[in-house]
């Protein structure tokens, strides 16, 4: 392997990490605040992708710009769903099976809606930029990937700013640490939860729209990304934006360099395998959670 090839792979991994990160952030905030494992995340990413598709085909809006429109739309949808369905779930400091199954049911519904509205054939978005490539020395980068990476980084930074410098962000961080204590201190946990859920869905849709410019998609395309999102948030410690970034990079790195050792068809199995191993062996974020569960009252 030449140095140039390695560098190229590293750059690839980095760009991939960006998109993986923004895809996982949505799940992270929802999990952190509400301890809900959002299995429907895949469905909302799918929605985002198809919304971008519609915007592109009907209004000729570039998908990356479409992401800017998709975000608020999905945010509103997220809040609506929270109001309709999610707020009835019993609150808890630990993820409950009820929430898991509820989101799973929601995912099934979304998938089916996707099939009904858009059919089950693969779609993709082709713009004049799709195939353009930039070269820096010996390094080749798809320009779309670069822009997507830029958008992803911008989103993560924006989210970090919101979390650290706004009143809302403080509420979120308080609830993440201890929901009950947050309530006592005066955080409106229902409203914060609602906005957080909206944010989470908004980011899911945004990620979907960005992904739509990179890959082809069908209503079921969320699933492998969902599993990747799990890996990432578990790797990253479940409760911080920077953790997500780290987790995203690790996964992207493993996947990109994994191609060298494993035949193409087994690639997805790497992510799944990593998920299982991470869940079982990883100290730090994951282990401390299981330790909490094990402690007797």
């Amino acid at each position, binding site marked *: 392997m030449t140095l140039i090839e390695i560098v190229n792979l590293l750059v690839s991994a980095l760009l991939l990490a960006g998109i993986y990160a923004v895809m996982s952030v949505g799940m992270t905030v929802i999990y952190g605040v509400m301890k809900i494992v959002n299995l429907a995340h895949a469905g909302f990413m799918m929605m985002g992708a198809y919304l971008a598709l519609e915007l592109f085909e009907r209004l000729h809006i570039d998908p990356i710009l479409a992401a800017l429109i998709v975000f608020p739309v999905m945010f509103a949808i997220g809040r609506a769903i929270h109001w309709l369905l999610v707020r009835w779930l019993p609150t808890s400091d630990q993820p*409950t099976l009820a929430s*898991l*199954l509820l989101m799973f*049911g929601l995912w099934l*519904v979304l998938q*089916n809606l996707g099939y009904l509205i858009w059919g089950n054939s693969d779609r993709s978005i082709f713009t004049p930029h799709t195939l353009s490539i930039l070269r820096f020395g010996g390094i080749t980068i798809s320009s779309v990937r670069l822009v997507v990476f830029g958008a992803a980084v911008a989103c993560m930074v924006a989210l970090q700013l919101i979390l650290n410098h706004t009143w809302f962000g403080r509420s979120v961080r308080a609830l993440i640490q201890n929901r009950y204590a947050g309530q006592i201190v005066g955080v409106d946990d229902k409203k914060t939860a609602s906005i957080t859920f909206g944010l989470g869905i908004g980011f899911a849709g945004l990620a979907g729209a960005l992904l739509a410019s990179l890959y082809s998609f069908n209503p079921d395309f969320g699933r492998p990304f969902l599993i990747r999102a799990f890996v990432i948030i578990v790797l990253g410690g479940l409760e911080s934006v920077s953790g997500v970034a780290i987790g995203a990079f690790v996964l992207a790195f493993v996947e990109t360099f994994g191609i060298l050792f494993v035949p193409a068809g*087994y690639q997805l199995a790497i992510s799944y395998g990593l998920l*299982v191993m991470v869940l079982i062996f990883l100290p730090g974020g994951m282990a401390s959670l299981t330790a909490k569960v094990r402690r007797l009252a």
Partner: protein
Amino acid sequence: MRVSQRTLSIRGLVQWRRFALLSILLAGLAMMPWLVSSPNVIRLLFLTFLWVTTSVAWNILGGFAGQISFGFAVFYGIGAYTTALAMNAGLNPFLAFLISSVTAAAASLIVGLPTFRLRGPYFAIATIGISEAVRVVMTNLSFTGGASGYRIVEHRPFLQLEHYYTALVLASIAVASSILISRTKFGLGLNAIRQDEDAAAGLGVNPYAYKLEAHALAAALTGMVGGVFARYAAFIHPQGVFGFQTSVHILLMPVIGGIATVWGPVLGGVVFGIVEEQIIASFPEIHLLIYGALLILIILVEPGGILGAFRRLYRRLHARRRDKTSNPGGGEADEIFWRPRRG
């Protein structure tokens, strides 16, 4: 002492009645082929028996023990492929089924040993990961045909009745196991693990071992179903038997019917078998929608599933007679996920 004596005799009476009813039902099902001539109905019943089996099997781990697995397709698929390979090697199909149950159970140990350290949703997510990983691997494995599937060549003639009775026997075994478990120490232990694993451990239950045992039994039954189906269909492929869709179906039935009860999964299997066939025939496009909506409704409104809804109805109608005749409610999970609303 008087109270318990009276309860015992009432229980005895109820048991005799139940036993009689069950025998009649079983006899009826056994005679079905002579009562009904349409092969379509027989086929429908055949599939229903298979679904009832997986439903009841999954419920042993997911319902009784409370460990929700999204990855039972692994055992279904392993059972299917084991039977296929064994039969193509010349083995008797019933021997193949038995071997399938063993391989599926072995697989469940491999899956369970690392994952049963995890609790609740983490366990569930891990099972999704494992299930998908296995599917990907099987899709790429060439000696079993890979993505294009694998055909079973059977030199015996196709006898629908043989398949019918195989499935009926399998379903009966599954339901009988479920009933037995619910009444013995094993079931009590699983129930305790479901409600509070640590408290159960503090009283002498070995949660890890029990979970592995429940998993193995559930996997063995599911594996056999996979085998029976494989023989019937004579062709299997990874997308189908190892697919996430299969895991979803297996999980949906007991949850919709009534999780953690003995008859809920049976009801779920029956409903699923009948409804699924009809829906696939008439409205193939919306069956995910219906199942998703049903799941949502169940979680939010009646976590006890269809059975739970019936029970609630029954209780409301017979509110006054409740004290004397009601079942003390051991082990039935009306509130498996639900904590009472505050205020």
